[in-house]
């Protein structure tokens, strides 16, 4: 199970991680090795097994529809790398 550079690039794009050519190669090899190891699971028959998605067997954890004060806007924006007009500022989308 060896990942091609193209596959590594695709995954890096999905994950929004820009990689150098060297990193693509290095991570590609490392990921392939880990996935090879994960392929060990293939030998285990699991057709009739229910996936375990939640450890606790609870259902219906709710809260009521009562308004609580929001956090102060200045506190919310205190860690913002860039803000303007009380909004988070980001560079152009396109």
């Amino acid at each position, binding site marked *: 199970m060896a*990942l091609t550079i193209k*596959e*590594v690039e695709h*995954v*890096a*794009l*999905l*994950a*929004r*991680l*820009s*990689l150098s050519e060297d*990193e693509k190669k290095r*991570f590609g090899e*490392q*990921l392939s*090795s*880990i*996935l090879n*190891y*994960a*392929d*060990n*699971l*293939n030998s*285990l028959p*699991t057709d009739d*097994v*229910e*996936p*375990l*998605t*939640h*450890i*606790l067997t*609870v259902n219906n*954890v709710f*809260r009521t529809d009562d308004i609580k004060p929001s*956090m102060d806007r200045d*506190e*919310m924006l*205190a*860690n*913002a*790398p*860039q803000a303007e007009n009380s909004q*988070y500022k*980001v*560079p*152009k*989308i*396109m």
Partner: protein
Amino acid sequence: MELYELTLHELQERLARREVTSEEIVKSIFTRINRVEDKVKSFITLIEESALQRARVIDNGGIYPGIAGIPLGLKDIFCTRGVKTTCGSKILENFVPAYESTASGRLDQQQGVLVGKLNMDEFAMGSSTENSAFFATRNPWDLTRVPGGSSGGSAAAVAADEVPFALGTDTGGSIRQPASYCGVVGMKPTYGRVSRWGVIAFASSLDQVGVFSKDVRDNALVMNIIAGHDPLDSTSAAIEVPDYTSNLDGDVRGLRIAFPKEYFGPGIDAAITKSIKKALQKYEELGAIVEEVSLPHSQYALPAYYLVAPAEASANLARFDGVRYGYRDFEAENVVSMFSRTRAQGFGDEVKRRIMLGTYALSSGYYDAYYLKALKVRRLIANDFAKVFHDFDLIVSPTTPTIAFKLGEQSGDPLTIYMNDILTVPVNMAGLPGMSIPCGFEQGMPIGMQLIGKAFDEATLYKAAYAFEQNTDYHTMKPDLGVK
């Protein structure tokens, strides 16, 4: 004995008898920290002034219920209001939360005195604390060795008498493994026992908050405070918290202890195997019933873990995009470029690896073969434990396959370092409580014994751990840091 050498309950007694003040304790702690921190490097952030002030306020109040006036450390994964919280990462290097995690908040409400934030592998991904973006912490028993990870700073600080207790988190062994390497008590409770609110998420279905301490009683004391339902965490259990200190009577007669043969194979250091077997003998002497069992799917836990955890992590870490907090690459010309460059610059290699691994495992065409498959294997692992717990109260095994390795020794192949978690990961996959207590030495380095319990049966773990501890003296041993 210096104040910094004492356990939590010993400090409580001194405070109760008015023999010391909180300020004196905190000063003693900082004296110790100032002497050994250069060597051990446990802390990312220290808040000496604030801690002293807090201590003085508590002293003015004049009473010391519970942990009032007692210093503590927090793994830098707990969001602390007004105190920098980095999660061991450059991407949060200057992040100061405006909110407090539930677990640390409960300690704060009980007037515990926070002295600082402890080093960790970046985003809790690692088994040595070498993945911290800032520096590596050293094992107080041998400064050329790792303290373990990801809660390496917490384990080292307790082992080095820098704090009487600390909180950490455990996703695949990140409390138990460093506790084992550093010769301290580390407890990861049942999934859902302690709230995850305000704890920076690595893998949502595996993360649990736990406690490092010098002995079992201290651990139980702290667990009493932090455990319990939190309406802010939909995965926190609405199950009553018993008094974990009430069972500490040393009586383990009739306790049915299982040891899984898969945990004692050739991959485990002979000295460690010997040490655990000796411990099991001790339990038999104390009246417990000890038998070998099988957890047949054990070998599949680690590969499954390294699909489930990174998958969840890839989503949990996606919020670090430079928009609302944390590091941002200001040279990016547009938003997509900003995301990719910010994350590339802000995250270390291990984090990137796991994000990509997780993204791949969830991606179109691979979800069934990887992520879904791993969740099914998870069910089999949980079933294995459930079967054993029909007939037994406790499972005992080594915590780690080796003693603490040397700094830099395992930095090559990621898979090698993952193997350190092989005995701890199954417990997280099943969501069960697991504890590590010191039970021997090899080459002067601590060996840890892992105790695994039924869901929400931390009480039995504490009872059994206490019995062993009180019948041995490993918990009294301290590393010689060459300072007095």
